[in-house]
């Protein structure tokens, strides 16, 4: 960072708002405040328009964000939202997501600084998904939709600029993950046979929420052939049963599974609900004790071993069945997606308000 004022978080940069697009982008890139892609220069006019998206005092801080412990004011969130390309109506989602990420149990400090390839995945529920056109269907984890793309991107810019997660400095990710560019989707409530995630977490169906989960990039779960729910669940459990990810390594945290609509249909056809899926995974997803010992895990006390031989039993990935975070999204196709987590983190759900 070449500018001391920029580094200290003052309100304005020593860059004229009249710079043309290429000049502004070059200067912002050299300051280290972008993601490497072109940003929209955060002129005061654009930031003022962004702030019209929410009725909140722009000077209010939602707390500090580590590792740099920068103040997350509404205005700073808006500046990053402008740069990411957000529309003003997306600001309320960003504010709710920051409120979620500063909760102690989310462990943002660790998530931002770690060598592990982790990023916050945002899952939006309730009427905001349709109002803001947040994609929950085909390619909902990929590119194409402005809301998904720019909200997820703004979260990353916030983690770099407000929180200090500059790669190789405050963010020490060994490889990182492409999911750090953007990872935001909505639950496909219309295509789900079950209660949506936010309702299961105690919110009314007509309240909009965002849930933030410290995710790896999604792992494919391909099952094109099972005719019953048991077959689908067997593949779910198998897909997450490796010692490569942090849930296995640490034996805690949450594992998210985004269930594709066709898999959901097959499972629900057999009368299985969310709790059944969680219990199945808790009872069947795990690794042999010998494999875990080989990677240095030794905290088996809290975990009930199961199956296999007595000498080398399976040990589960998480502490309780509810630690499998389930929701439905996607288009047509026989796929689901597994998101192992950072492990030392709990997902947090916050309501999206415009006041």
């Amino acid at each position, binding site marked *: 960072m070449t500018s001391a004022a920029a580094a200290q*978080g003052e309100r304005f940069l020593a860059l004229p708002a009249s*710079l043309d697009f290429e000049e502004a982008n070059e200067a912002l890139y050299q300051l280290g405040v972008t993601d490497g892609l072109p940003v929209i220069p*955060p*002129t*005061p*006019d654009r*930031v*003022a328009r962004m702030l019209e998206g929410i009725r909140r005092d722009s000077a209010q801080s939602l707390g500090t964000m580590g590792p740099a412990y920068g103040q997350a004011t509404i205005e700073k969130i808006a500046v990053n939202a402008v740069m990411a390309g957000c529309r003003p109506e997306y600001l309320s989602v960003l504010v709710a997501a920051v409120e979620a990420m500063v909760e102690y149990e989310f462990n943002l*400090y660790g998530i931002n600084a770690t060598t592990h390839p982790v990023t916050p995945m945002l899952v939006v529920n309730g009427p905001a998904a349709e109002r803001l056109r947040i994609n929950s269907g085909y390619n909902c984890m990929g590119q194409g939709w402005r809301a998904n793309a720019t909200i997820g991107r703004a979260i990353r810019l916030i983690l770099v600029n407000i929180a200090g997660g500059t790669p190789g400095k405050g963010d020490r990710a060994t490889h990182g993950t492409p999911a750090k560019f953007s990872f935001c989707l909505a639950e496909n409530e219309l295509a789900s046979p079950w209660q949506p995630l936010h309702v299961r977490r105690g919110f009314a169906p007509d309240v909009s929420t965002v849930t933030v989960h410290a995710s790896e990039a999604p792992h494919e779960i391909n099952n094109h052939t099972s005719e019953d729910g048991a077959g689908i669940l067997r593949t779910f459990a198998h897909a997450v049963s490796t010692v490569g990810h942090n849930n296995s390594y640490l034996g805690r945290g949450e594992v998210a599974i985004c269930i594709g609509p066709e898999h959901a249909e097959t499972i629900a056809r057999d009368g299985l609900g969310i709790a059944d899926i969680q219990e199945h995974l808790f009872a069947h997803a795990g690794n042999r004790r010998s494999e875990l010992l080989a990677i240095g895990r030794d905290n088996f006390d809290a975990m009930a071993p199961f199956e296999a031989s007595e000498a080398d039993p399976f040990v589960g990935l998480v502490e309780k069945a509810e630690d499998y975070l389930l929701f439905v999204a996607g288009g047509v196709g026989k796929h689901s997606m597994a998101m192992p987590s950072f492990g030392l983190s709990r997902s947090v759900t916050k309501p999206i308000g415009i006041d």
Partner: protein
Amino acid sequence: MPALNQNAEFLMNPVGARNVERGPIAPRLGTLRGPTIGLLANTKKNADILLKTVGEILIREHGVVVVISRRKVSSSPAAPDAMLDELAESCAAVINAYGDCGSCASWCIFDGVTLEKRGVPTATVNSDAFVVLGQHEAIALGLPGLPIVTVPHPMGDVPAEEVRKRAEAMIAQVLRVLTTEAEVLESEYTDRFIDESDKFTRSEMVCQL
């Protein structure tokens, strides 16, 4: 906060305002002869061996009477309040090991800063690949002079014998940061690793923008 149009000629800054408070580190010990020393392990592989060896040397060669060993549940996040309370009450100083990754270095520094702010001098250990990060964290937390003891990186894939050698090599640093006058230490450690970051960050791991 002024109205936005007052500065309409400049781009706005996306960087969050950082902590500008700067606190002192805890007073150091006059001597190691007598007091109880706490050993705080963060579950990282070999942290137990490293600390155990250091504790043995301190008792055998430097007059420390008792060491108390505590182990966090995991390397991230912070040590629980009850554990820090106990260490602060029963120990004259704490050796806190170790940070050799992004998350654990961050929280290791966090624990060190918390103890120092409570008046307990610490020797907080980072591997040399992560000490630049560690010092940035100490600055962010308002304790830029936190003395950080370094060990070679990596620590996780070396045998126990090598870990014990590294513990022996580390003793001089531990003695120094626990018994040197605080003001001297602060001037010595403030920005020490930031300025020398090239020494500790392998250049082939960092690509220029």
